């Protein structure tokens, strides 16, 4: 798992407070939610924040940069 501290697609704003997570092998939205929220069942928050790049919560790709709300 790798988090990218605020350097996402729109990283030129000095006050951009968005947190990103770069998907690595073995990641699932559930695991990512567990890491950031302590509770995997909250993965829907990540899915909803990334609807522009995710169509299915079960299908995430290595290298994708997901917003962590």
């Amino acid at each position, binding site marked *: 798992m790798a988090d990218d501290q*605020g350097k996402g697609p729109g990283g030129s704003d000095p006050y951009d*407070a968005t*947190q990103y997570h770069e998907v690595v092998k073995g990641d699932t939205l559930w695991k990512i939610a567990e*890491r950031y*929220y*302590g509770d995997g*069942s*909250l993965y829907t928050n990540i899915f909803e924040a990334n609807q522009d790049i995710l169509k299915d919560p079960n299908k995430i790709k290595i290298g994708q940069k997901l917003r962590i709300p």
Partner: protein
Amino acid sequence: MKRNIVKVAIALLVGIVMLAACSSDKGPAELAIKAAEEAVNASKAEAAKYVPEELKSLEGALAAVKDNFAKKEYKAAIADAQALAGKAKDLLGAANAKKEELTKSWTDLSEGLPKMVGAIQSRVDILSKSKKLPANLTAEKFTEVKSGLAAAQEEWGKAMESFKAGNIAEAVSAANSVKGKAVSAMETLGMPVPAGAKS
């Protein structure tokens, strides 16, 4: 006897000449002090808001000039009053520069802080639904973040009120305090602190 009369006459004459010379400087000294006072008054409103310490020093210098005048040291009073008028102009320039600097700070902070506070609020809302908090975040720390966030939001409201009232220095000071609270909350929550908030 005659010599003594001559000596007294000369002394009197010298005294009269000196007195006349002194008196001739009184009018110009009054004018110079008036001009200096007007210059200080013209810069007072802005200087009091943005460079209060420098204004205090200038007012002290003006009082010293008036003291010289009261002691009939007119030449010194003229020279100091003339210098003071120039300093008052410089003070107004410094106040305007400080105002510009603070306005820029406010613009940056007022654009950036709502994003930070919004991101923290979003994370707090999600974590409040969590059955188990993430590693490195205890319930106690989370409670601290929530109360810090509430305080930051209240302070941000005050900062905006200050700015609307024209108190830019006060607004920037309050905004910087909000920034400090937001940075602390983000660090506790394991969120990235934006580059603009690190300075």
